[in-house]
């Protein structure tokens, strides 16, 4: 069974899927283009000194991938974020594989590995692990946000919370879909690799969920995904792209600032 093999269990409106994702992606592209257009209206030079690539690579590792500055601001703050960040990276890699599987020929070793070989198991395992990471990080950020909001004066606008909310529901519905699939087709030898969904499937009696509800769920999940993607450039999640880029460029400008990056001295 391939990662795209659940068509056999319930009906999926693929045409709708293509339309809604295209729509989401189009809005995303327009938003990003608007952001980029805005950035490049700045007329001053981004690099005042000649670019220091060594510093940029070093800071990419320390500040973007490991998020050391966030760590110095608090362990839980860092943990929340790194779970979301790395979870996202995991999900993103899986999506990339998914897209590739649609492109490469059926007899390619890559295709075989992920559809018939052990790659499928890894795919399922990493998918659940990454989803769980994002979920854990996002839920705890949401709780932190709702708890901290009244006392704090920082501008926590509704849109910030909404973005987090969408993310949580998105991952949750993803897990639900996977568990419904497992529950509807028991005996999948790969089920234990989808450890979160498999655990959730334990609560659902096999086949009791009507197929049309599964279709509805699937459609909802796909729609929410498109909404999330479309919303990215307009929300504070624009930082997902802007922060890593600006941190790396700033590092080149500030490479001599041993005190700013204390550990680089």
């Amino acid at each position, binding site marked *: 069974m391939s990662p795209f093999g659940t068509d056999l269990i319930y009906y999926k409106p693929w045409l709708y899927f293509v339309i809604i994702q295209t729509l989401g992606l189009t809005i995303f592209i327009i938003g990003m283009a608007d952001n980029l257009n805005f950035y490049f209206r700045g007329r001053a030079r981004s690099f005042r000194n000649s670019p220091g690539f060594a510093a940029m690579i070093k800071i990419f590792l320390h500040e973007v991938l490991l998020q050391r500055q966030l760590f110095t601001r608090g362990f839980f703050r860092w943990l929340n974020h790194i779970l979301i960040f790395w979870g996202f990276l995991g999900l993103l890699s899986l999506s990339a594989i998914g897209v590739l599987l649609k492109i490469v020929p059926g007899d390619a070793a890559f295709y075989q590995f992920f559809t018939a070989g052990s790659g499928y198991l890894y795919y399922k395992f990493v998918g659940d692990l990454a989803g769980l990471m994002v979920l854990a990080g996002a839920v705890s950020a949401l709780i932190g946000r709702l708890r901290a909001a009244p006392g704090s004066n*920082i501008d926590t606008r509704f849109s910030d919370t909404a973005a987090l909310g969408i993310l949580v529901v998105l991952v949750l519905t993803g897990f639900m879909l996977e568990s419904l699939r497992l529950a509807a087709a028991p005996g999948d030898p790969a089920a234990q690799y989808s450890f979160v969904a498999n655990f959730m499937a334990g609560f659902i009696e096999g086949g009791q969920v009507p197929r049309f509800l599964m279709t509805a769920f699937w459609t909802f999940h796909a729609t929410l995904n498109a909404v999330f993607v479309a919303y990215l450039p307009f929300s504070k999640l624009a930082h997902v792209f802007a922060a890593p880029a600006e941190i790396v460029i700033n590092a080149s400008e500030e490479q001599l600032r041993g005190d700013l990056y204390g550990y680089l001295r």
Partner: protein
Amino acid sequence: MDTSARQKIPLNSLSPRQLMELDACTRCGECMKWCPIYAVDRSADLIPGNRIAALRKLLKSQHGIRARLAAGNRISKEEVERLIEVLYECTTCGQCHFVCPARIDTVELWEDLREAVVEAGLGPLPDQAEYLRVLKKYENPFKEPRENRGIWVQRGLEQGTLYRDLPLITESPQPVLFYLGCTASYNTEINLVAQWVANLMHYAGVRFGVLGNQENCCRGKLRRMGDGDFAAKAAENIDLLNSLGIDTLVTNCAGCFKTIFQDYPRIKKINFKVYHAIEYVDMLIRERRLQPVNLVPMKVTYHDPCHLGRHNGIYDAPRRVLQAVPGVEFVEMERIRQNSRCCGMGGGLKMGFPEIQTLASAERIREAERTGAEAVVTPCPTCFLGLQAGAARAESDISARHLMELVNISVFGR
């Protein structure tokens, strides 16, 4: 202020990297916990993260697709005015930069945004504009005549506080220029600091001179408040300094130091090394050309000036100097080095919001009090003045002292 919400703020002084920074802020609130000005003026608009959010909203409504789609400007005149006000209610101390998880270079951003606002004719605030007008006209902010800039040498010699005469570098070329800056030239109390530095350099056998009446203001305040004339005015001064044939410039003012050391080379190449006096004295002590031998029995704490510390990474030299003075018992405050609380004197805040400045200084004084020290010392004349006012405001027994005074006493025994 004649502000129209439709008045477009140009993006000439901002780089793509900086506009990207506006999108990189997550409103995480870390800056809110540390900003020394928000600590004394609890208006939510002042929080750096909120300021960035508001600026992003304003600039995006004026530039890009959204500006074209939303024909009218949805940001009210009052909002724009408030935004410009908070942009100036900031000492550009750089604390927010050091705690920001997105590493937003806030000081650079604030200064360049101020330049954009000035270009649009919306800034600076009236009192600051007057300050800059005076500065440009008189070449100092005190409306003092230029002929009086160098009279301190004669006065110091007569009063016996300056131990030896100083050559004018334009008449007798020397390898080292001692650059005073406006405050040390005209403010008699701060001028003593310059005299102490001169005494120490003489004692150590440094061959140096001064510019006397020909010394210009470093013009750094123009940059701090976003005046677009800064580049041209600085270039003039760079040409003068480059023509002197010096190999080293030493200044006792942290503001002049930042301007000459950091801002000038971005405008034009400079052909000399730049030291703050405390770094230079530290070097002289380490080379054993200066020996602080006389006891100065005193429990002191040290205040890091933003322009030396966060802006230029000079944390250790002044501490070494302090510890080289025998008799001094040195205790640290809670917030030091990268996290040192700004005294409120920088960034033109004092000209626009004098009351807030005093409150910020008083806050720093209370931190100094908690160490049990009898004095808080600093090597920056501006911080020194700020802390003095803060001590008066906080009705504190602690005194603010200039670090150079302690060294002078220890070396000369008087």
